[in-house]
């Protein structure tokens, strides 16, 4: 790192904040992200919480991390390695130091590198004494504890309370290094502590002290700027996937002109959808925290039967429990949205980690021939749009739809381009009107959807249920040919949804040596890795599937235009199995099943093994 007095301009920076669960790392991570967003950077964030609610202070499994990547160009992932690591204690140091790039800034709170904390992290001697780190990194040692106590002197706060602001002091330091405005954070502090002036003052002092300390630090003499990114013009907000998804649900219901009903049972990492929607009461959203996942989907089905848009959100174990009821929704052909925010499995598995191993469950995890469309958002912001698309499918085709998100998308955030209201096309749900000789299973010619006959409408009284039924009348019918017809119709109806897809976008040439196919949250890592390979002049393209079932009609031609097909997945090759069976192509998979997203580099390296 050279030392000049003039800020140098950088393309992008990755900062990882790491400390104890109580150290407020998520908070400063979010502040840095928002400030950078307001500065016009593109950004991507990834929080990494401990599994425990409050793990014992100072232990490695109690470390809470937050990574933010901000850039003057379009980016797709929170980054593999970081340029800056803030380590608030030895445990955070231990867990995260491997992620720091050589030459990166290693900002360490020496105030917590005492015997007790070292021991809790499993160190016999302080790692700071290890010359390796000094040589490899730009090690910035600072006792944030004394610094912050010093900084807030005069506010009247006890030392114990003062210590709470040490994260803000560290934030101030990084604001100086990256030439960030203090204003957004000052504003935020003012709102948050409007009723606690002493705390507010302390935090403001800590923030400014951080700036001062950085300015005067020998080690941090370089200031950098990161120019705004060439983002599409428009208004943006920084949204986590679950937040975007929740907004998408509200928007989708509004576009369908339907009341939204969420039946849900809390489960990590899906609970936030319940939390967000519960706040939207003034949008008329009904949330129902059920006694279990079965009751949650059951209530959602009941709500759909009675004319609302029923939604249920859960993770893998909850999907397992809901699978019987999904069959009922398929048989009764009611609109329903089932959201699976995937986490590490099997069983309770790694409940706070990410994985994509529920795809085959989504496609085939029900008894009988029980087809359900499956859609997977590819990024945090795409959750918004995918939710709307899923609702549209559900309502227009009278079918349950599965939306597959995952923990990395759900908790990660990126700038969300607020769509133009006019760009959001309305698709008002059609409900059957009073008529003579109403036939609850008479189908629409184009979509094969049956009519939605809502209780309260005179003349439409009818009975439905899970037994096989006669097409048209909907009466119970066990006759052999009718069953075959109905199995066929339920399948055809879902297959026809593929007619509504936009053409697939191939990133790169339309044909060539290698096509990388992905789905879901691997989008960013694949796209970046392919871009890097392309810039080597390699003939590699990328197609990302948002619609997993039915498969896009143009997929086959695209696949056949490449010599090789590579499918990176956070599972043991589930999409791989589908594409092999559908298209008989000798595609190969690349699996990572570690509860962690792919790094761009990993995919890039794997691509290189193919060339």
């Amino acid at each position, binding site marked *: 790192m050279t030392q000049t007095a003039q800020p140098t301009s950088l393309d992008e920076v990755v900062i990882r904040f790491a400390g104890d669960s109580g150290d407020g790392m998520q908070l400063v991570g979010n502040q840095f992200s928002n400030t950078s967003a307001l500065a016009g950077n593109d950004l991507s964030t990834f929080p990494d919480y401990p599994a425990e609610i409050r793990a014992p202070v100072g232990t490695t499994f109690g470390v809470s991390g937050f990574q933010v990547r901000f850039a003057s160009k379009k980016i797709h992932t929170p980054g593999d390695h970081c340029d800056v690591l803030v380590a608030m204690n030895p445990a955070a140091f231990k867990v995260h130091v491997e992620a720091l790039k050589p030459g990166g800034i290693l900002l360490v709170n020496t105030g917590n590198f005492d015997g007790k904390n070292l021991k809790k992290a499993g160190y016999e001697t302080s790692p700071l004494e290890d010359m390796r780190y000094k040589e490899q990194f730009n090690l910035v040692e600072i006792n944030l504890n004394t610094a912050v106590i010093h900084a807030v002197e005069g506010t009247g706060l006890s030392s114990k309370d003062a210590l709470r602001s040490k994260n803000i002091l560290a934030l101030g330091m990084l604001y100086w290094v990256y030439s960030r405005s203090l204003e957004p954070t000052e504003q935020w502090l003012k709102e948050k502590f409007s009723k606690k002036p002493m705390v507010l003052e302390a935090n403001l002092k800590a923030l400014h002290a951080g700036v001062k300390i950085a300015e005067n630090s020998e080690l941090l003499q370089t200031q950098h700027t990161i120019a705004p990114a060439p983002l599409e013009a428009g208004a943006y907000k920084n949204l986590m996937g679950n937040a975007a998804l929740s907004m998408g649900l509200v928007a989708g219901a509004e576009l369908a002109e339907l009341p939204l009903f969420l039946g849900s049972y809390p489960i990590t990492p899906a609970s936030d959808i319940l939390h967000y929607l519960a706040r939207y009461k*003034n949008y008329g959203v009904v949330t129902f925290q059920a*006694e279990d996942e079965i009751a949650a989907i059951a209530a*959602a*089905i009941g*709500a759909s*039967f009675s004319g609302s848009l*029923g939604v249920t959100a859960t993770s893998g174990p909850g999907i397992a429990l809901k699978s019987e009821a999904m069959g009922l929704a398929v048989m009764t052909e009611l609109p329903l949205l089932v959201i699976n925010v995937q986490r590490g499995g099997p069983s309770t598995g790694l409940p706070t980690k990410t994985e994509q191993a529920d795809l085959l469950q989504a496609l085939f995890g029900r008894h009988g021939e029980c087809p359900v469309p499956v859609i997977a958002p590819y990024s945090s912001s795409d959750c918004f749009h995918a939710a709307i698309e899923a609702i549209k499918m559900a309502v227009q085709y009278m079918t349950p739809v599965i939306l597959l998100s995952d923990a990395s998308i759900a908790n990660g955030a990126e700038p969300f381009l607020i769509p133009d209201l006019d760009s959001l096309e309305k698709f008002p749900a059609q409900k059957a009107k009073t008529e003579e000789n109403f036939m609850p299973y008479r189908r629409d010619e184009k979509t094969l959807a049956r009519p939605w006959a809502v*209780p309260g409408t005179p003349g439409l009284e009818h*009975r439905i249920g899970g037994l096989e039924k006669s097409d048209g009348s909907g009466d119970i019918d066990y006759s052999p040919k009718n069953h075959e017809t109905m199995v066929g119709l339920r399948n055809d109806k879902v297959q026809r949804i593929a007619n509504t897809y936009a053409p697939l976008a191939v990133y790169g040439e339309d044909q060539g040596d290698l096509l990388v196919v992905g789905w879901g949250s691997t989008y960013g890592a694949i796209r970046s890795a392919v871009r890097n390979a392309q810039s080597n002049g390699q003939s590699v393209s990328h197609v990302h599937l948002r619609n997993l079932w039915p498969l896009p009609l143009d997929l086959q031609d695209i696949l056949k235009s490449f010599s090789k097909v590579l499918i990176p997945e956070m599972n043991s090759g589930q999409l791989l199995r589908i594409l092999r069976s559908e298209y008989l192509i000798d595609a190969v998979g690349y699996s990572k099943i570690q509860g962690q997203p792919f790094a761009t580099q990993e995919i890039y390296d794997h691509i290189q093994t193919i060339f």
Partner: protein
Amino acid sequence: MSLSYKKKDFVSDQDVRWCPGCGDYAILSAAQQVFAKLDIPKENFVVVSGIGCSSRFPYYVNTFGFHTIHGRAPAIASGVKIANPDLDVWVVTGDGDALSIGGNHIIHAARRNVNMTVLLFNNRIYGLTKGQYSPTSDPGTKTGSTPYGSLDTPFNPITLMLGAGAGFVARTVDTQIPHMKSVIEAAHAYQGFSFVEILQNCVIFADKVFEHITEKGIRDSRQVNLMHGEPLVYGNDLEKGLQFTADGLKIVAADQADTWDAQQRDAAKAYQICQSQENGEFPVPIGIFHSVERATLDAQVHAQIAETTEKLGKGSLTSLLQSGEIWNVGEK
């Protein structure tokens, strides 16, 4: 409003497929008669059931009906009612459907007080699956799955519902038509979750299990009918009565009988009189055990929505998208 429905308006075009002699026929007919009397537009009825012989009920009623999956009717009905509180929601279920696989949903619907009327056809057997013992079968019952006799203690559906906090709890008998109709009517009139256990005879797999309580000759001396504000009397000539004492329930002469109070907030006496049924000395209570209203969940949900909307203003797509911290890129 007077819709002057007849029973036949609530008869659907489907052939009824219960065994000849099944108690379900009488219940269906009684319910259809009650429906006709209620003066509620036919299209506002939603009858939800699970799986079982009893759960075939919706097919036979000319209203909106939903024959769902085993055990989940109370949960599905909760969704129907909370999403659309204008509907008149009924649940028809069996002892297996409601108390075995569906036990959790029914106790939760009860405590939440979702406004629906539950008719539980208790025949103490799994009829549809050809006769296994159920959670209400007497110990020692021999069935396909218990060839040497069942071993577990049954539930008392009434105490289970009282323990769960149900606001309206009643019991009636498939062969006592006027009683059945009056209890179903009272259950429906109650605003909230109302639960009616109907003792129902399965002629095929558990014929006559209630004979000792319900047979014509002995019925009057083996049953006591709980009617709010009426004395607790029974016997062929209503000559006997029941009295609550500090030491428990006592059989007394009719003129010393206590007056039944189904509206006691704490349901302690309902619980106590229920327990007496385990003891052959006492008559078996039917009628209305408990009936205390409280706010329903469905009403509260919509009240909270209204209140929040008033406070925060009605949300729109614009307010949704524009909320929180926002920044602009380019000329916008």
